């Protein structure tokens, strides 16, 4: 789906526009610019209409289960609201983000005027990982005052284009700040042209996607990377309450372990394999209970892949020292190593030992791939472990239940997106 100037256009028109895109963009840049207020107003209006039936239908159409779709919509309602966005702007860009700031630095006679300015043109290359992520990425770009060019992931289903079109209908001034192109990432000519036009390329995706963008982008264009991450739980003896564990189980079931902040596995503060095996016996039951509460129909392709993988692991376990605990809808595997690794997903998690004194040694090599840790421990232990975890590269520590939820003004992978999409300019 191509969205240009607030209208859906076909591929031919799109190719035509691509030829003239440079002059379109220059025209926009020569205007007075986009204030965050306009964007916040439009988003707030959108948030009030978003919980309506037509959105629910389009979400269901692209294969999202009803209960999850409803959850997405109420989440979107919050994330697009004035209250949320204004708080986000203030947190990320500072209280006076929208004004020029007069400064009088030491060792300098004259005053300096500083201002937070957009980067200019952002080219968002989004992955199909989280539904409606491309639209959210573009909205962040708009809040920072940028022109946003989006390349949609192949499997996105048009949801983002629909949201952005609606936003333009609410506020037509946004039309020239939003371009959605349907070019394949294999279309080197088109991709190259879009990359060249941008001040910064915002890339969401795995290491492969990021690597190929790095190769493509001239040093004269900035690259803003939002890579794939891995999250897990860390539990001490004191933190092992049923309520805490249920939170982790709930996260595993609700996200099917697909998100960068989903729990892939559980580390326990012990050196003793007996503790691990006892834990598995207990946790598999909790996980099965939560599984039954959060029903998610898997396609036959995925279901059979998981079944194949689990059966294969059962065979492998006869020649290795790991042990698989299986239940109807989930599994837990006790390993003797301490490797950080992704799970096979869809409610199949690993459990491993990791005594506190080894946290840094084991986790640190994975620095920029680590994201969220659900930390279950006593209040007394907490600060110590938190400080060590931060040094390993982990950026967010929370409870099991909250792993995949966020709050207004939260950093993403340890950074404020709006800061990355703006620059500080000064005049003396």
């Amino acid at each position, binding site marked *: 789906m191509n969205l240009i100037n607030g209208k859906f256009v076909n591929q031919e028109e799109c190719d035509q526009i691509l030829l003239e895109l440079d002059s379109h963009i220059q025209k926009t840049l020569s205007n007075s610019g986009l204030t965050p207020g306009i964007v916040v107003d439009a988003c707030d209006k959108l948030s009030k209409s978003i919980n309506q039936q037509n959105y629910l239908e389009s979400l269901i159409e692209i294969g999202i289960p009803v209960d999850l779709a409803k959850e997405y919509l109420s989440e979107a309602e919050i994330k697009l609201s004035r209250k949320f966005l204004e708080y986000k702007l203030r947190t990320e860009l500072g209280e006076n983000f929208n004004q020029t700031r007069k400064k009088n630095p030491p060792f300098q006679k004259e005053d300096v005027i500083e201002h937070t300015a957009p980067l200019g043109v952002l080219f968002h290359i989004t*992955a*199909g*990982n*989280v*539904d409606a992520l491309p639209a959210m990425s573009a909205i962040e770009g708009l809040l920072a005052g940028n022109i946003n060019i989006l390349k949609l*992931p*192949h*499997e996105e289903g048009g949801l983002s284009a629909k949201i952005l079109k609606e936003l333009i209908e609410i506020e037509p001034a946004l039309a020239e700040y939003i371009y959605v192109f349907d070019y394949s990432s294999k279309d080197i000519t088109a991709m190259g042209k879009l990359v060249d036009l941008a001040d910064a390329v915002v890339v*969401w995706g*795995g*290491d*492969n996607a990021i690597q190929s963008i790095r190769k493509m982008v001239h040093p004269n264009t900035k690259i803003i990377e939002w*890579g*794939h*991450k*891995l*999250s897990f739980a860390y539990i001490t003896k004191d933190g092992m309450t049923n309520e805490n564990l249920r939170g982790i189980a709930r996260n595993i079931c609700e996200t099917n*372990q*697909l*998100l*960068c902040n*989903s729990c*892939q596995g559980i580390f326990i503060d012990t050196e003793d394999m007996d503790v691990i095996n006892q834990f598995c016996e207990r946790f598999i039951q909790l996980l099965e209970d939560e599984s039954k509460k959060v029903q998610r129909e898997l*396609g*036959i*392709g*995925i*279901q*059979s*892949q998981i*079944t*194949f*993988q689990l*059966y*294969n692991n059962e*065979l*492998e376990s*006869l*020649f290795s020292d790991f042990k698989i605990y299986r239940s109807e809808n989930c599994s837990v595997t006790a390993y003797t190593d301490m490797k*950080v*690794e*992704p799970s096979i*997903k869809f409610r199949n998690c690993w459990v491993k030992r990791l005594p506190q004194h080894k946290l840094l040694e084991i986790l640190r*090599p*994975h*620095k*920029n*791939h680590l994201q969220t840790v659900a930390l279950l421990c006593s209040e007394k232990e907490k600060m110590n472990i938190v400080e060590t975890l931060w040094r390993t590269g982990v950026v967010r520590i929370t409870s099991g239940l909250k792993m995949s939820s966020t709050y207004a003004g939260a950093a993403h992978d340890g950074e404020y997106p709006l800061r990355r999409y703006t620059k500080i300019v000064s005049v003396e």
Partner: protein
Amino acid sequence: MSYRRKLFTYGKMNDSAGTEQLFLLAMKENLHCHYKNSEEYRRILDARGFSIRQLETIEDLHKIPALTTLFIKSHQLFSVPSRKIITKATSSGTNGRKSVVGLDIQSGYYALRVVLTSFFHYKLFSIRPTNYIILGYEPHSSNKISTAKSARGLAMIAPARHKEYALKYTKNGYELNQEGIIEAILRYSKQRSPVRFIGFPSYMYFLLKTLQEKNIKVKLPPKSKVFFGGGWKQFFAESIEKKDLYKMVEEILGVPKEDCMDFFGAVEHPVLYCECPNHHFHIPVYSRVIIRDSKTLQPVEFGQVGLVNLISPLISSMPFSSLITDDLGVMFDGSKCGCGITTPFVELLGRVGVQNLKTCSVNAEELLGGVSH
């Protein structure tokens, strides 16, 4: 005479009903041999509480603990000493992992018997000199891929008058020989000798598309044939149906669909499955197929999709009597086909999983890439 020998020299390749008992006995014989000679296999059968005595009827075959195509990539299981291995083949593996299959004399001989019987059955042998278009690699000492070998094998069943290869070996390595192929097709179409095409469906599809773009249509001589050597899996993304491809073959090359034929087989399971005149893969007497439920792995009914489990006592050198593949498939009642063969037929639907899993969680390769060892 051993039961396996009896089974693999059995002439009526579609008489599954008449060979049920023989198949079961051959399986037991094969399992006994693997159980005795492969320590790993014995461990698996024991751990899963299986005893060969549990095989009372042909309905019990699903009880044999199956290995997986993934498992045999990480374990080399042999039931004979390595000096008895006469030939080794490597399967084209996904993610760079390959399984190596070694056959002893007996297994190699049975595999050959199965192929020859199938070719005879479908009357593929011909003494007429034939022109070949091989949509694959020109043989050269630098390539040892088993598909190249099997393409050459197919080319041997009728004497070659001329052969043209899609990938020619030049001093710069392999290069696409599109011009040569098109020229050969035009030249062959004016000759009297039949033409045989051999190659992956995707290559055929690209060739047909090219001919279509260049507005080339020919009528190849009668008795020309088009053979596909499997490889429909990679083809899934192109979402072209087999029947559409056959239609293109008929329109562009003038070869009717009765003369198009697809095969599949695997080095781990060297039973050859050939298309019947109605383009179905009936299961020959040499093997059985079980479709297993995508969640419980229990056998499912005809018409239901599940994981494909291939069963055959063909190999005595490695314990591959029952293998679960990572393919999805569906099986149908043979009598519904109408070609006269009554054994069930199986349709392969592609690999398990989805190509673009929606996830932003880091994967294993990325994680390994992030750690310096």
